[in-house]
Structure formats: C-alpha cells, structure tokens
C-alpha cells in the first residue's frame, strides 16, 4: 500500500517532492495512473503509506496545491483527501 498525491503538472509534482523531501519524507515522482487521471496524462508524487498524513499536513501548512490524495493498494485507489 502507498500514497499518491495527484498534482496538476510535473512542475507542481516537483514542488511537492521538494517540500516533502525537505521534511524527511521519501517522495518520488511518477506518471499518474490512468485510473486516477481522468483527464489523461500528468504526474503525481508517491510516498510511503506511513507518511501519508504527515505529507498532507505539510502540503496544507505550506499551501501547496494538489488535486487529490489517494491510498493505493493492489490496483485499487481510494481518495483520502482533496
């Protein structure tokens, strides 16, 4: 299980990654899975499930925009924040 932070663009994905990495959260950028990206294409940031809440709190605190946050497990995605 892991967390995907869906961002508007690759630029925003990098911004999210930088912010989270500076806070000690391991984050990596990947293409947004098609079942999440309804508009097609785009990038998201993956973080370990254990860091999900901390990541969301950091983004909100710094007012970094994102589209939504998903908990992904076995090909299923559950939206946990938007």
């Amino acid at each position, binding site marked *: 299980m892991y967390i995907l932070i869906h961002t*508007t*663009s*690759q*630029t*925003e*994905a*990098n*911004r999210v*990654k*930088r912010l989270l990495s500076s806070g000690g959260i391991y984050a*990596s*950028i*990947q*293409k947004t899975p098609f079942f999440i990206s*309804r*508009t*097609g*294409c*785009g*990038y998201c940031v993956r973080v370990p499930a254990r860091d999900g809440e901390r990541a969301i709190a950091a983004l909100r605190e710094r007012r970094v925009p994102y589209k939504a946050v998903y908990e992904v497990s076995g090909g299923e995605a559950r939206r946990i924040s938007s």
Partner: protein
Amino acid sequence: MIYFDCAASSLKKPPSVYDAYLDAMRRFSCGVGRSGYGAAVRAGELIYAAREDIADFFGMQSASGVIFTQNATHAINIALKGALSAGDRLVISDMEHNAVYRSALWLGSRGVSVDFSHAAHSDDETCESFAAAFERGARAVCVTHVSNVFGNVLPIRRIFREARRRGIITILDASQSAGSIRINMTDDFIDILCCPGHKGLMGPQGTGLLLINGDVTLSPLIHGGTGGASRDEDMPEYLPDRFEAGTGHTAGAIALGEGVRFIKSIGCEAIFDHEKSLAALMKRGLSKIGGVTVYEYGENTAGLFSFNIDALDCEQTAARLWEHGICVRSGLHCAPLAHKTVGTLERGTVRVSAGAFNKKSEADALLRAVRDIARGSA
C-alpha cells in the same frame, strides 16, 4: 578574437553551462514532461530546479511562473498578444527593439491602440511622458530596461510603480539587463518579464524566459500538448504548462539554470560594475579621437554604447574592426525606433557591448584599432 557583441549574445559561457548542456543532451533527449521512466523524471527535476533558482534570482513569488521560451522575442510575443485585444491600449517607449515595436504595430493593425511615450535624456521627463500616457488609460505598458543601441537605462521602477497604481499590466523587456542589473519583480512592480537566456544570463542560444509574477491572465500564443490534462480541449490554466506547449529545449533549460547560478555566485552588481567601467573607459577613449562621435544618451547607462567614425559608413567601420579581430555590431540593431529618437536613423551606428568576461586589455585594443582606422579614413 576580441568579442564586444555581448548585447547580441554572450559568446563565452561558464564551464558549468557547457557541461550541463552536453550532459543533458546525452542523458535527457527523451520524453521529458511526458513519460515516467527515470531519465524523463530526472530531467523534469533538473528543469524544476532551474525554475526555482530563476524565480529566486528575479524575486518572484512562485517558480510556476517561470516559463521557458525560445528567446526574448518569443516571450514578448506571448506577453503582448496574450494580454491585449481589440479596443485595448498599449503604452510603449520610443526606445524599443523591434521585438516590442513590430508586435505592437501588429496589434495596432488589429484594433489595439498604441501610445508611444518618450524615453528622454532625463529620467524625470521620461516618467512624466509615461504618466501622461497612463492618464489616457491603458491595459498594459511594455518598456525596455536598457536600450540595445545606446545603453541608456530607463527608470522602470518609477514607471511601473505609477502603472501598478492604475492597475495597468507592467511588462519589462529585460533583454539587455537580465544578468547584469539586479531585478526584483516583486519590489520593482513587474508583472511580466521577458528576456533571452543566451545574453546576460549566459545560457545557450534558443533559450529565453517569460516570467509571470502574480495573477496575470494571458491567452496562450501556441496551442498543443503539455503532458497533462490531455483530454481537456483547452490549454490548461495553470503555469507554466499554459505557455509551454510542445517538447521543450530540455538541455537549454537545464544549462540556463547553471548560467543563473553562476551569476548568483558572482553577483549582478559585480558584473554590472565591470561591464560599465569597461564601456566608460572605451567611451572616454573614443571621445578623444578626432573624427569619432560617441552617442551619449540617458542619465544612467549600462555596459553598451554606440559610436561612429564620421568619415566611414558604420558597416565599414565594423568590417575594419573585424580586420583587427574585433567583433562589434553595426547598423540599426533591429531598433529603428531608438535610432529615430536619438537622431541616428539615417546612418546607423557601431555598437560596442561589453560582457562579464571582457578584459581591460581588450578595451585598450579596441581603442587602438579605432584610432588606426579613423586616422586612415580622415
């Protein structure tokens, strides 16, 4: 070869720029901004790092407003054609390069009224001219920071402060100042800044910047794929994707970031002082040579200027200087408006533009060469 054509392009780049460019060409000529494999993602990270450093360098609120373009002309076209439509008024100075002038005239042929303010010798007079134009109402003002012909520095902070007070979009053409004059978009009331990457910022040719600071809405000039929101029929609203359709100049963007880091490490002020002192040295020396006219214009000047050997056509003078191994630019410098303002439209000028890597010995060599040429042509 002695290179005094830095206003056209900086010939020498920091080693880090060459290294970054070649490395990116080798490693990242791939699906950057489109694909998800390691090289594509890593390139995206390096491009983002460049955006962050550029945003910091120009005092911007967000790295998302850093848009990579082909050159300053490309950026200026996006800014002007994206901001103005029929019925709007645009104010420009009478010192503008054709990038602004021709774009403004094109807009004028499509229902935008264009108002020309006078970039005078005196800053107060310049500001008064702009204030009078603003009084008549305007949607946007676009001004060159430094004339690419005469090197006079326009009082953009004063002009833009007045424009901001009236809700007018402020657009700066920083083609001759970016990298050598400290610019803070937030403090200097600049909404949009356009500049090349290959001049003072020491990046590769084929790079430029459109910097948008704050909430300015522009229509895109070019439509196409952005690597995101592909099912949307319109271009995305968010930056920088709205203005970066199509695969970009990955190596150029990464190398431009290195150029900016180099300048940050030295400091704009040091570069400006160096360029200006070389220009002052050459202007002083040329003024003492009989049959040579140096054109002085404006209260404040940067590291470039124009002159003529009175008995020679400007193109002949430049050709003769090249016989001495010296590179300068001659003609109208794509800025007929500036020449008309200063009175050199009918004969053009020889432009000398110093850069961060020029040496005093090179300035001395130019003076010796002009002295020889002027003596021979008298």
